[in-house]
């Protein structure tokens, strides 16, 4: 009798069933990071020559388990990392803490591909720049691991830990050129603003947990959605959203971006501008669609404001920049506005799925064109040693190929048909109009006006490269290493294919998070 009582008070620990197949991409990625670290420990200097190749090949290798899992979840199935046998039930039930569905897999594939392109961009930059190589790739891989975990995490603790795992290596990488004051400033600024945002977000999470009694997003959704609005839940949602608004550098939380982008090593800048930002969006999407679903009255106005402010202020500040990286930072702020815009109408059940796939679609195209633009900059900087727009004058005369490729990326960022960025912007516009509400139409107008403003500064960079004379008449060609050629080839192909065959690749990003309704 006493034994029985004791068991009732403290149930036996039951090990949950773990789906190793569903977790295989994470495990491969983890082994890759461990391998890179161990190679450095065992072979020291001799391992330097191969670390970047192993990091790149390893990331390509991760695609294999990802695609294998993808074929299983392609038709709407959902895999759970853990399953638990409930008392009385015959089959174990999946736990909602870590979910592998089509959305998660598509985002994971995107993260790993972006990681691969960043490794290609880094190869020569890091090897020739006297940086700490194997540590560099090790941190890069652990940051990507954080992103991959983020795509599947469906509870507050998982999301928070994934965010820290992807951010902390990024803070360190931003300061990697450690003898350069600008890089120190970049790392420190990014770190301080980042922890501050994390603290605000964690406070919001604690409020949500306090009022709902659960860290699981599905439970939070049941508790805060539908019911009368409660001030604690509202504060919690706002604080958490603000934390991620920092991560995606939305106005008014964008101040860190230009200085950090300028000071960090350029491949790291590309990584921050694309991968880190996408991870922030993945968390925002999961939170809005799974956690805060039904609380459109709270997040819709917030997203509307963030989108309109980011687009307008980002674009106006980008107009005045003379440094290409700073211009890209402000243009990235503006692009953030475009990507957030569909979330301002996401609460409308009829177009919620369309809004989600529009955002995912934009993220995929944004990744390709932004990485490409930074890739061209890295290639040109091998000759000019500068990121000033004035130093890109007359690039056409000594690097016609790079100039043409850069033009594709710039026009794609501006949204000129028939290049990828046009399709992305068009879908944002159409989903806003479909909402058929005043706020939707207003935001659509803001999108349209900002697309025109953006064209001005993107086109002026292209004009500088095509029409001006090269400085000092120096026409020595740029030596573009094969890894950079590969990176530019991949990104330019994806950018063009998304624009010319939108229906084919559009299927890739047609995902849904509303399986449960």
């Amino acid at each position, binding site marked *: 009798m006493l034994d029985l009582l004791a068991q009732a*008070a403290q149930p036996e*620990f039951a090990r949950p069933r773990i789906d190793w197949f569903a977790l295989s991409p994470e495990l491969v990625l983890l082994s890759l990071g461990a391998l890179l670290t161990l190679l450095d420990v065992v072979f020291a200097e001799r391992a330097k020559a191969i670390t970047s190749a192993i990091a790149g090949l390893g990331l390509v290798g991760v695609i294999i388990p990802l695609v294998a899992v993808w074929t299983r979840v392609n038709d709407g199935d959902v895999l759970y990392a853990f399953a638990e046998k409930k008392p009385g039930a015959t089959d174990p039930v999946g736990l909602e803490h870590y979910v592998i569905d089509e959305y998660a897999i598509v985002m994971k594939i995107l993260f790993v591909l972006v990681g691969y392109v960043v490794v290609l961009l880094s190869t020569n930059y890091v090897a020739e720049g006297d940086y700490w190589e194997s540590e560099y790739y090790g941190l890069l891989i652990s940051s990507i691991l954080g992103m991959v975990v983020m795509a599947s995490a469906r509870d507050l603790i998982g999301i928070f830990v*994934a965010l820290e795992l992807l951010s*902390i290596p990024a803070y360190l990488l931003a300061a990697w050129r450690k003898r350069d004051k600008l890089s120190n400033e970049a790392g420190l600024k990014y770190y301080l603003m980042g922890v501050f945002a994390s603290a605000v977000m964690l406070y919001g999470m604690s*409020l949500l947990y306090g009022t709902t009694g659960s860290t699981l997003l599905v439970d939070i959704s049941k508790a805060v959605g539908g019911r009368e609005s409660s001030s604690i839940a509202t504060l919690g949602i706002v604080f958490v959203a603000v934390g991620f608004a920092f991560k995606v550098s939305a106005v008014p939380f964008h101040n860190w971006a230009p200085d950090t982008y300028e000071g960090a090593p350029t491949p790291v800048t590309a990584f921050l501008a694309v991968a880190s930002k996408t991870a922030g969006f993945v968390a925002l999407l999961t939170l809005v669609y799974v956690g805060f679903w039904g609380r459109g009255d709270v997040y819709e106005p917030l997203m509307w404001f963030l989108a309109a402010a980011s687009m307008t202020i980002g674009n106006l500040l980008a107009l005045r920049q003379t440094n290409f990286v700073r211009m890209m930072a402000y243009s990235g702020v503006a692009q953030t506005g475009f990507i957030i815009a569909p979330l301002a109408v996401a609460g409308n059940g009829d177009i919620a799925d369309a809004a989600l796939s529009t955002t995912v679609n934009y993220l995929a195209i944004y990744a390709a064109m932004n990485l490409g633009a930074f890739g061209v900059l890295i290639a040109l900087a091998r000759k000019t040693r500068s990121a000033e727009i004035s130093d890109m004058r007359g690039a056409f005369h000594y690097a016609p190929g790079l100039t043409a490729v850069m033009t594709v990326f710039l026009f794609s960022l501006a949204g000129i048909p028939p290049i990828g960025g046009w399709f992305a912007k068009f879908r944002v516009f159409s989903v806003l109009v479909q909402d058929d509400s005043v706020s939707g139409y207003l935001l659509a107008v803001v999108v349209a006006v900002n697309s025109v403003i953006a064209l001005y500064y993107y086109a002026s960079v292209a004009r500088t490269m095509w029409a001006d004379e090269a400085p000092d008449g120096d026409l020595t060609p740029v030596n573009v290493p094969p890894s950079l050629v590969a990176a530019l080839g991949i990104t330019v192909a994806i950018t063009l294919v998304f624009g010319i065959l939108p229906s084919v690749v559009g299927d890739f990003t047609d995902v849904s998070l509303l399986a449960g309704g």
Partner: protein
Amino acid sequence: MTDAVILAYDPEVPRQIAFFLIAAVMVFSAFRVVTTKNVVHAALYLVLVLAGVAAQFILLGAEFVGVTQVLVYIGAVIVLFLFGIMLTRAELGDDESVATERRGMAALTGVLLFGVMTYAVVDVFDDQTIDRTEASTTGQIGDAIFKEYIIPFEAVSVLLLAALIGAIVIARKD
């Protein structure tokens, strides 16, 4: 039965007295953290605030969180603060320049935030009481870490290794 007898047997009374005593110390110390002109004193007052938080957790029966609070905040974070103050050769005595700029804005932000938070907490929780009859929560936390939270738990270990390696690279002289 008179009121006095009921009070004598109610375990809530000593808890309430302890709560308000600790809370008073915490509020005073928190105020001193931002008003004292000596950085080291500010850090030491912060110790008092954090120890108060730990004590409140223990009063609520959350002994694991209370002990963690002592270990992490008083044991690690404050020591880090003091090291930071020493290593950066900050002014150790009274420093008149500390926290005079933008004092008004900071106070305004603090008061506003306090108002919003107080309103929200009182609005939602009002006079709800929590059930404190449950046995120790430490075992449950241990089970949860190795069950549904095993992925965040493992991710944290990767995170610590990455942070360690990165910090060494950044801090090295060469």
